[in-house]
């Protein structure tokens, strides 16, 4: 090859390849790799593509179950049965690193990538969620701190408009998710995007290069120099110099992807497709070697035939480009015409670039010259696997006695904290109603969506309390799963399955790896308990800025099914005169709570303990009560405890509703414990007054302690406990909660 740099130890190191890995490459090839091959190995063996540091951990997840049609890791996304011949494909993926340096495009292409993963499975994408984490956007400190806050706001605004730009244009509603703000994400935001699609069982498409002699088609956008080696970039720490990696961030075109989506679904329906794979991370490299590896075949492509955006691109650049909106399609020989017709109809580039071979090689040519030749299976599957060293972190700082704080002010402050405040500033920018299926508007415990094609109602949520995970990664991960299942239960759904996004720091640091291992084991255990197999997901390591690693954030995306439209339940109180009940115990755990963080400025103490038996009982109880038609609203207690949950019930509906609450029966404990503890397995429901006794007995019959808290109505949320009384005008609660984020973001 002309002008290719010589392979030196420096060049190898620059590609993130260790000397041992280089030896492995030499032994696979039986010779020295050339420059293009070195690049190919570097992206395929990056953490992002090979999971070389996390694979042994990921094997701990339960991945099978009666409803699992396509298992985790088999294809681009897992597929789950939802009955009547219908299935769903869903997955969550991160775009953290790109979003840190180019928030708009980073987030936009994250959305584009996950959507491609879904329609690659033959599914029509029907909705998205996202789980976002940023550094603090609130506060008015001066100096360096203020600089950081302004930067966090720019990242937040950029990510939100990037998601809106892509999702709105392509016409897939973004209907829910979660957003948190914490110092640990400063300089390294987390952008996890989730997409779900629907398909018939018989429509499941596979990503194998099957059928020797079948032509290989490239369809979609032309290849450019953007996103060069993005997968390798995402597998390093973010540093001050990362800004120079901006060419590693791709540029998205949602309009092209919309056309690609429609064209691919039309093509899949035509029966011409033998195999299909999107070009995401590691682009053409990954799609060719993975399709060959899956089918046990080889693939030979000619780069001269690849549609290109600019002249003079080297094989290295073409193979490593992560230009967006491209797919590789293996076409059944003799059925090339439908491909041409459909892609011409949609005005999209397409080209026959290669052929399926029987020799197991990924062979890349430029005309007659072979520029790379690598055994496909070894490239895709034989990346080294590392068992990293794990060192436990010191136990968290004990909570100790807390200074007294005024509960009246504390609740207002908690509701105005951006992590708890209403996210309307965000979801107003997302088209959350296209596809005419959104049954619960964003902001309730779970998103609820009617999938018309299948006549099924789905609920979906993403959850992770990273403070708990920072203080106790195993317990925090368990709680993430439990909370997701609880959110679905509160919406009237039965959980089906889970996708996860593991966001951690550099795995070479033993404490970070310990967090990863603890979290994975906690997630795996809880997924077994709730019978929710993990159908796939994503691992994002190296989430660190110069200040250190992010809090361990194993985001859980969970999907459930609602059997009947009458079971759809939301969190807001529905008018005056209803009885308010608590399913679960009063609780007392303040460790790791948002109260301690927001009011006392500490992340400390032992986070709440999860008891599976209690948790499952409370979820089962709320589902039974919903099915019996008792429940007018249901909301789980999470960040901010009982007081925040009650306030949200009062202020998150179309109309504000007050409430009179009496907690005297919970004893004379300290106010902060009573109001703001985050003990698990608690759900607030409202029922018609005359149904209250029946609901209480039913819950208790199911083994769930249940308490009368009071009644809805009035213009205040009034909580009393013995002689103590705390009244808040609901109008004030609402203002603090509704306007907080807008206030910070539109502050001039």
């Amino acid at each position, binding site marked *: 090859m002309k002008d290719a740099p010589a392979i030196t130890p420096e060049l190898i190191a620059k590609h993130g390849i260790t000397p041992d890995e280089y030896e492995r490459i030499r032994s696979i090839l039986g010779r020295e790799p050339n420059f293009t091959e070195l690049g190919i190995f570097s992206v395929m063996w990056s953490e992002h593509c090979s999971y070389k540091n996390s694979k042994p951990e990921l094997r701990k997840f339960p991945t099978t179950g009666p409803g699992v049609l396509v298992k985790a890791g088999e294809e681009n996304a897992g597929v789950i049965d939802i009955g009547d011949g219908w299935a769903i494909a869903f997955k969550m993926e991160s775009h953290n690193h790109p979003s840190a340096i180019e928030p708009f495009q980073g987030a936009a292409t994250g959305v584009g990538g996950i959507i491609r993963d879904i329609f690659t499975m033959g599914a029509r994408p029907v909705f998205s969620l996202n789980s976002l984490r940023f550094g603090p956007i609130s506060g008015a400190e001066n100096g360096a701190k203020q600089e950081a806050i302004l930067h966090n706001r720019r990242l937040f605004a950029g990510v939100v*408009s990037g998601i*809106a730009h892509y999702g*709105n*244009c*392509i*016409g897939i509603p973004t209907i829910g998710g979660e957003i948190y703000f914490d110092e640990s994400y400063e300089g390294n935001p987390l952008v996890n995007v989730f997409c779900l699609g629907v398909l018939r069982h018989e429509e499941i498409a596979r990503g194998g290069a099957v059928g020797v002699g079948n032509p290989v088609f490239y369809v979609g956008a032309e290849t450019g120099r953007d996103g060069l080696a993005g997968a390798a970039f995402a597998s390093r720490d973010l540093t001050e110099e990362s800004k120079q990696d901006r060419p590693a961030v791709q540029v998205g*075109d*949602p*309009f*092209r992807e*919309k*056309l690609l989506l429609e064209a691919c679904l039309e093509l899949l329906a035509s029966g011409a497709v033998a195999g299909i794979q999107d070009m995401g991370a590691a682009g053409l490299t990954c799609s060719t070697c993975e399709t060959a590896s899956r089918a046990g075949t080889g693939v030979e492509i000619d780069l001269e035939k690849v549609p290109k955006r600019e002249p003079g691109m080297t094989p290295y650049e073409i193979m490593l480009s992560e230009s967006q909106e491209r797919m590789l399609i293996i076409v059944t020989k003799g059925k090339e015409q439908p491909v041409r017709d459909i892609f011409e*109809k*949609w*005005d999209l580039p397409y080209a026959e670039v290669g052929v399926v071979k029987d020799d197991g090689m990924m062979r890349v040519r430029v005309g007659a010259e072979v520029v790379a030749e690598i055994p496909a299976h070894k490239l895709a599957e034989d990346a080294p696997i590392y068992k990293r060293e794990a060192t436990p972190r010191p136990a968290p700082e004990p909570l100790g006695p807390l200074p007294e704080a005024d509960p009246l002010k504390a609740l207002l402050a908690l509701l105005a904290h951006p992590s708890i405040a209403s996210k309307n500033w965000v*979801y*107003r*920018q*997302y*088209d*959350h*109603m*296209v*596809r*005419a*299926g*959104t*049954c619960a*508007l964003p902001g309730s415990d779970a998103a609820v969506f*009617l999938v*018309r094609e299948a006549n099924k109602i789905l609920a979906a949520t993403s959850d992770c309390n990273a403070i708990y995970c920072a203080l106790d990664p195993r317990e925090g991960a368990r709680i993430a799963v439990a909370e997701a299942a609880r959110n679905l239960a509160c919406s009237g759904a039965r959980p089906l399955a889970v996708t996860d996004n593991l966001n951690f720091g550099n795995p070479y640091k033993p404490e970070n790896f310990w967090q990863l291992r603890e979290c994975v084991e906690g997630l795996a255990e809880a997924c077994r308990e709730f019978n929710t197999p993990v159908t796939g997901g994503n691992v994002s390591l190296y989430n660190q800025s110069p200040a250190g690693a992010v809090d361990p954030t194993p985001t859980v995306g969970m999907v459930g099914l609602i059997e009947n*439209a009458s079971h*759809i339940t939301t969190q807001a109180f529905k008018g005056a005169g209803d009885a308010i009940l608590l399913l679960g115990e009063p609780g007392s755990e303040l460790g790791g709570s948002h109260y301690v963080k927001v009011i006392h400025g500490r992340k400390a103490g032992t986070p709440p303990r999860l008891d599976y038996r209690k948790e499952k009982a409370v979820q089962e109880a709320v589902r039974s009560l919903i099915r019996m038609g008792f429940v007018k609203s249901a909301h789980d207690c999470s960040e901010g405890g009982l007081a925040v949950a009650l306030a949200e019930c009062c202020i998150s509906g179309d109309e504000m509703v007050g409430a009179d609450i009496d907690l005297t029966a919970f004893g004379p404990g300290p106010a902060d414990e009573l109001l703001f503890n985050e003990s698990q397995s608690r759900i607030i429901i409202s029922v018609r007054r005359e149904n209250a006794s029946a609901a209480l007995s039913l819950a208790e019959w199911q083994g769930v302690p249940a308490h009368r808290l009071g009644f809805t109505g009035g213009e205040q949320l009034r909580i009393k406990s013995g002689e103590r009384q705390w009244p808040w005008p609901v109008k004030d609660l609402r203002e603090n909660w509704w306007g907080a984020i807008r206030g910070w973001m539109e502050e001039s």
Partner: protein
Amino acid sequence: MKAAVIRFPGSNCDQDCHHVLKNEFGLDTEYVWHKEESVEQFDLIVLPGGFSYGDYLRCGAIARFSPVMRSVAAEAGRGKLVLGICNGFQILCEARLLPGALIRNNSLHFVCEYVQARLENMETAFTHSEVAKSDGKLLTARTGLLLRMPIAHGEGNYRADEETLRDLNRYKQIILRYSDARGAITDEANPNGSSENIAGITNRAGNVFGLMPHPERACDPLLGSEDGKLIFQSAIESAMKKTKSSGPIGKRN
């Protein structure tokens, strides 16, 4: 009696409109690809929302040159009913089938939320009728009726020169205005900065209607509103009268 839903590259509310016409109203409904030359055989033509051509250049600016638009203009000229929703409204303005233009929201943000649209003229082909909701209650057109429908757009800020605005008022072409829950036309209730809170207008002849709210997203009680049915029901009845074709129109059950 047949309805067409035009599909431009980048349309994304086409399936929602098709669903409502076909399944909620039992209408014979077809997708028409933008490269088709004729929509002559249809009695009701719907330009759905979305991002035709990615909204590149300007919303609707490229779509107006799609081959199908010549036929849409010709049929509109012959009095056929044309309904443009969101991006469809933008395309109708670009094609000069409706006066004025839709520019970027004054907030500079995309905005998606429910709005109240006050019915200003109950005598148009699109807003004169009566429809039963799923709970049996009737929704009857009357001036001042508030329709609760979602909006979802980045460029819905309706603008026209003074003379055009005067004419729109004079000829009762302003059909919907954003209002508050009591029906007052206020700045607070205006989600995008539109002149005079305009949410939807017709042409002078009254057979071409463009609106920013999405009636197709407000035809199912599960989603929170059925107010959009009034618009489809009126349009279908008017189209039927025009074509004098018969055949039962009603919810498929």
